[in-house]
């Protein structure tokens, strides 16, 4: 098991190295990094100071070294707008985005898996057909428009839930979170549901396809032949088997959820890093965009790593194969 984890860690490091190269190349190919990373309003002295600090006057391989070094030190340049380190700005807003993303994942799983399993077990029932039609809709509905409609119905017309913002937050382990106050939860419901909708459709499809396939397997019939209750057959024998693809895909999709939070955050004025990204793009605050990119890449790689490890825990066959190899 530990061999497996170490190998995956090494792979992740290689990918991070590669990605840093790509981002670096991207900055240099697309434009002059001096333009990209230094505010157009800076005066000549300031420009020269920054060029020296970021090592932009050196040959490219040295520049890359500086880039890596600075990235390791957490210096990804200062925001033109806020005059603060870009990294700090993003890290400040990250908890809000992560909270939203995890809430969305939770909703997707909690509703998606049971609905999908039901549709898989009784594929011909009207309820199942309704569920599947709903999931097609969930796939096709543009996230931002659903967000608008949610605001219109639940905030404007019914007045049940607040339309924008994050509401009261409490500090948990040094991080501001919403889900511990009632006001915070109220603010969280709509955006989280909005963000969850697409993934929920995906989970429903995965769970249904998995259930349909697993339900036909001999081992399910054998489990029933053992006289197990249908509850145990479904909740243990079927569920544990469909968890493998669902967890894998969901894990990989977490990155997508964080990226898509950009849209939801904009609609609901949720103060996360996605909203920061959009604002920065519109205000041409490039250091923040670069920093966002690097952090997201890093998060993606981390997520992939965790998913791989989780996968091996869930599926004993993978674990064994990898240790042997």
């Amino acid at each position: 098991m530990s061999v497996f984890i170490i190998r995956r860690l090494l792979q992740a490091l290689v990918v991070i190295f590669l990605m840093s190269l790509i981002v670096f190349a991207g900055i240099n190919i697309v434009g002059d990094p001096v333009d990209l990373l230094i505010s157009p309003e800076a005066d000549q002295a300031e420009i020269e100071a920054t060029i020296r600090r970021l090592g932009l006057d050196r040959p490219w391989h040295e520049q890359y070294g500086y880039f890596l070094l600075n990235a390791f030190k957490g210096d990804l340049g200062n925001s033109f707008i806020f005059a603060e380190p870009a990294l700090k700005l993003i890290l400040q807003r990250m908890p809000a985005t992560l909270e939203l993303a995890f809430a969305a994942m939770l909703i997707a799983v909690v509703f998606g898996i049971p609905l999908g399993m039901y549709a898989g077990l009784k594929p011909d029932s009207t309820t199942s057909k309704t569920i599947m039609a709903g999931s097609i809709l969930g796939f096709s509905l543009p996230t931002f428009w659903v967000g608008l409609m949610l605001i219109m119905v639940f905030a404007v017309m019914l007045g049940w839930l607040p339309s924008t913002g994050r509401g009261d937050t409490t500090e948990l382990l040094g991080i501001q979170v919403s889900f511990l106050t009632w006001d915070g939860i109220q603010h969280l419901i709509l955006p989280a549901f909005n963000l969850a909708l697409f993934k929920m459709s995906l989970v429903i499809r995965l769970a249904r396809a998995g259930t349909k396939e697993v339900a036909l397997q001999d081992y399910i019939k054998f489990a029933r032949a053992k006289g197990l209750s249908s509850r145990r057959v479904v909740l243990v024998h079927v569920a544990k088997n469909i968890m493998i693809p669902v967890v894998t895909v969901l894990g990989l999709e977490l990155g997508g959820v964080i990226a898509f939070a950009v849209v939801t955050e904009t609609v609901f004025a949720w103060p996360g890093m996605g909203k920061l990204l959009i604002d920065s793009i519109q205000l041409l605050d490039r250091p923040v965009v670069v920093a966002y990119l690097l952090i997201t890449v890093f998060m993606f790689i981390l997520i992939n790593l965790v998913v791989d490890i989780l996968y091996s825990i869930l599926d004993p066959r993978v674990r064994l194969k990898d240790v042997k190899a």
Partner: protein
Amino acid sequence: MSATTDHLAASALSSQARVETPFRRFVSDFFESKVATGACVMLSVIIFIALFAPLISPQNPYDLAVVDVMNARLEPGEQSWSGDLTFVLGSDGAGRDMLSAIFYGLRISLSVGVMSGIIAMIIGMVVGLMAAYFGGRTDTVIMRIVDLQLSFPAILIALVLIAILGKGVDKVIIALVTVQWAYYARTVRGSALVERRKEYIEAATCLALSHRRIVFRHLLPNCLPPMIVVGTLQTAHAISLEATLSFLGLGLPQTEPSLGLLIANGFEYMLSGKYWISFFPGIALLVTIVTINLVGDQLRDVLNPRLER
């Protein structure tokens, strides 16, 4: 099994002239599903509207001589103050007829989606065929790039590109193409790898045909069915993505308002209860995407290519 036999028997009986060609077979299979038939009809209607928007719209919503601020924010069904036009779906903040705006928006959304889809398909096809045909290191390098790109969400890549390139129709199309080409490349490579091992390619190689001829005249036509499916589904995806970008204010400019931009423009009015400015363009967008997806799903079932989604 027996359905196929019956089917064959029936078509053999009906007339000798009507031969069961693969195309006929495909058409009859496709329209077996009522949902897909409905979607196909709907899609034709949408394409018709997009093509002939200037002819069938009640007004030209971007002709400043026609649009009158006096008609701003009228509810669906209200008449213009001069009484010569009924706003079936209401009017927006500038007094434009929403129905006309939606027709024009549909035209823009569809053309951006289809155009980016075609360009991405061509690029993806060439790259994917190269990977499959030459194999070895070419294949490894290309597929690594494809995998790496596909591991990032489309929206993120598009946002970053827009951030670097700036706004504009051409930039949006570039972003959409960049997001999509990898799907095509992967699909075409997958089917080309299967086809490549078949004997007709070997035969063509033995005839000492040029690489180009083998790839484009022999390999490519056999890889087309999955491409059609991916193309349909990707176009829906591209339309949705373009709408999202426009909504975020990073897509098409105000002078060429796609459905996404119409929805974004209505956002501010929504909080005061004027739902129609955002609602109807959204419905148009939704119907477009759902129909394309339904047609694509049915195409996939009928053509049954080896596709993973």
